[in-house]
């Protein structure tokens, strides 16, 4: 993969964001991200195929048929094959997998992949309705007004009961702090302008089930974001065509892409079992162990999902995720820096774009192009990992990357 590009993640917290003023629409985000990547790969002429990932534009923007926006990005993309994919919040990951498979099938040497979502078109309370589409609609009636916060609040409640509440909530608060501190180093992040001094104290605010959910507060949740990310998936031949040295690319060396039954409740509410399986498959196909991972972009749509993902990867035993976080292992100076530009909570979560954004961040970190957010990659842990989740642990894409040689 090469030539990553992120738009800003726009929403509350960004200075430019004003809900009463007109903002860029879906097409502007698609165009900006697409052109950003095309510019780095020598233009549209080098592209063989296109993939766009988007979750719910049909409701947020009343727009479908998104593949037909590729020629709008650049006239040079007219009459080229393109496809739109959807898998809730794992949409971005699925878009990447679609591109990867085209390259492996040798139908394309260069695939332009975009992930996009523009969600601030409605108030959060209606946004919750639209995003609930990531779950089984038959569960919607009995679900919470804020459907997904409700699902993960239930998971948090089960986790509190099994492993204790206080330390877990402290770990949530630390997770939030790490996310915002990392986001402050990345100019496109939604929390880039956040200047709050006492982040952990703020995040310890007691949850209020009367106005929100029982076990999570707003700082435990990723925000409503508009944004797009783009990347090029290329073969070695494609890399030459684009004139990019291999050292500026990351190699995809393994993945796990799986689905779980959307109609079934979680196997164990204290565990992300599908996530665990996808990561296991990714590491096995890459032929590496988790101890060789230098940095990971994981799907912290909620702090509790971040914590459980640490256990799913195996960084911490079951019930020990809080200790792993509170000991500083996930911070940018820690053993395995996680979500180095803020993740979903800090950078933002334009749902259909998130999976692509994760790949762009890993690409930047492994090739030394992460700017102020750059971490030092431990030579003994040269691999990057992404974990992109759709629904409540239902659609999973996990990818292992290594810098090109």
């Amino acid at each position: 993969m090469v030539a990553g590009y992120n738009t800003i993640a726009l929403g509350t917290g960004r200075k430019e964001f004003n809900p009463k003023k007109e903002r860029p629409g879906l097409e502007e985000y698609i165009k900006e991200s697409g052109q950003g990547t095309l510019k780095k790969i020598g233009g549209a002429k080098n592209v063989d195929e296109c993939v766009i990932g988007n979750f719910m534009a049909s409701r947020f923007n009343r727009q479908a048929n998104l593949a037909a926006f590729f020629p709008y990005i650049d006239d040079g993309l007219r009459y080229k094959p393109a496809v739109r994919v959807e898998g809730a919040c794992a949409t971005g990951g699925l878009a990447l997998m679609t591109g990867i498979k085209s390259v492996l099938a040798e139908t394309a040497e260069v695939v332009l992949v975009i992930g996009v979502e523009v969600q601030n078109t409605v108030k959060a309370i209606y946004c919750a309705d639209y995003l609930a589409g990531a779950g089984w609609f038959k569960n919607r009636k009995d679900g919470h007004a804020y459907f997904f916060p409700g699902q993960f609040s239930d998971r948090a409640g089960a986790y509190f009961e099994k492993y204790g509440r206080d330390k877990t909530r402290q770990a949530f608060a630390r997770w939030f702090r790490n996310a915002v501190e990392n986001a402050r180093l990345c100019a496109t992040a939604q929390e880039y302008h956040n200047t709050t001094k006492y982040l952990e104290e703020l995040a310890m605010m007691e949850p209020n089930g009367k106005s929100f959910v029982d076990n999570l507060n707003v700082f435990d949740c990723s925000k409503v974001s508009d944004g797009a990310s783009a990347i090029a998936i290329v073969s070695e031949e494609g890399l030459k065509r684009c004139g990019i040295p291999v050292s500026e690319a990351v190699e995809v060396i393994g993945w796990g892409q799986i689905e779980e039954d959307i109609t079934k409740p979680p196997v164990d509410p204290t565990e992300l079992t599908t996530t665990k399986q996808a990561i296991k498959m990714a590491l096995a196909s890459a032929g590496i162990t988790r101890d060789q991972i230098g940095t990971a972009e994981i799907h912290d749509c909620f702090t509790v999902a971040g914590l459980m993902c640490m256990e799913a990867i195996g960084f911490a035993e079951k019930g020990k995720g809080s200790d792993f976080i509170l000991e500083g292992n996930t911070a940018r100076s820690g053993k395995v820096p996680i979500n180095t530009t803020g993740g979903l909570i800090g950078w933002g979560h334009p749902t259909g774009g998130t999976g692509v954004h994760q790949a762009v961040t890993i690409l930047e970190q492994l090739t030394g192009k992460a700017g102020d957010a750059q971490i030092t990659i431990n030579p003994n842990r040269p691999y990057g990992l992404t974990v992109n989740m759709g629904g409540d642990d239902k659609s999973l894409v996990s990818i292992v990357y290594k810098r090109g040689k």
Partner: protein
Amino acid sequence: MSYEERLQHVSVLGAAGKMGSGILLLTVMEMADISLKPENKGKAFVLNAIDVSDEALAGVMKYLKAQVLKMAEKKVVALRKMYADNVNLIENEEIINQYVFDAISLVRTSTRLESAFDSRMVFEAIKEDPELKIGIFSKISANNPNQPWFFTNTSSIPITKLDEGAGLNGRIIGFHFYNPPAVQKLVEIIKAENTLPEVEIFARQYAKNLRKIVVPSHDKAGFIGNGHFMRDILHATAEVEKLSAQMPFVEAVYAINKISQDYLVRPMGIFQLIDYVGVDVCSFIMSVMNPYLPSENLHSPLLDNLLSLGVKGGQFSDGSQKDGILKYEKGKPVAIFDIEKRSYIPIAEFQSGVDTKLGDLPAPPPWKTVVGSKTKEEILAGYFKQIKTASGLGAELTRNYAARSCEIGRFLVSSGVAFNENDVNTVLLTGFFHAYGPINNYLD
């Protein structure tokens, strides 16, 4: 009759007014929540919105729909439980829309007083005219077989006078909302001499359900809120007259408005507040209160003079400020009305000159920062300590203003309007959004 039965048939008089529309909104939400309880299924709930103009009532229905929608969006967690049995309502949007529909369906607009003849309780928010109120209450009471209760929003007329005048035998209470009722947390509850105990019990329950802060006041004209506000106005106008000896009228108004806002750390200056309420309304409230206050003369020739020149203030129907003593651009004062020239003089023309005359004052902390600050007490104590020793005209005017405000507050207690000093401070803090109560020891 239970609380809920009482709320089955309600009328709001003056429903298209600023206060009436807010009362209508709060009441319709309360009635909707009750009507949606499973045990009340099938029972009819009626809320009459009564006013004199069909056009104004049409406007109120638009306002009501928009506001109920906003409030429904905020309480969707509770709404999902209310509509849990309706299998057809699945998404938040469907539930919110249904609630708005159900709430608005309770409201019937009417320009005829007869609509209130079936009501069990009547909220009144019409003109501050004792004879008008008495006439209407009498008519409803005489024609309504339900022995309805009357909740008057009067801010100045003694409730006992209304009770006796209309022959209600205690079926009345003062239930004084602050403007705008949907936002302001304060409600003053005023019992007439013979107010029935069950009316007061209901009033307190209703206020609690609306999440209001209740301050009781004795039945003395103007109660606590206007008792302070009207006398505060008279202090300001007296100061303007005094200052007019050494500077032009517009400069004096500017100076006192600035002192009463910036240097007293209040949300708006006194002349802006008069405009906000309406010069005519302020003048009228004084005229209503005055006959009940034999030892004082609550009357402002200056306000009368301004009114005679057509200076009225008040608000447009969209809530924006009309020009009054001050002229406004985007809600901010930009000019002041000159009585002699009968025109507005831009503040910019004399602002720096007056500021110089006021002298070198300690920089006041902005009201906005103070009001939400956890260290409010410290900030204010530190600031007023500097004011206490500062020299110059501005410091002196500030000290006098604060001292008079404190004196008025204490007078409201000693003259038997307020039950205690704390109640006075609560009214100013919650009804007027002041950052501190007038009765304090900052300048002692």
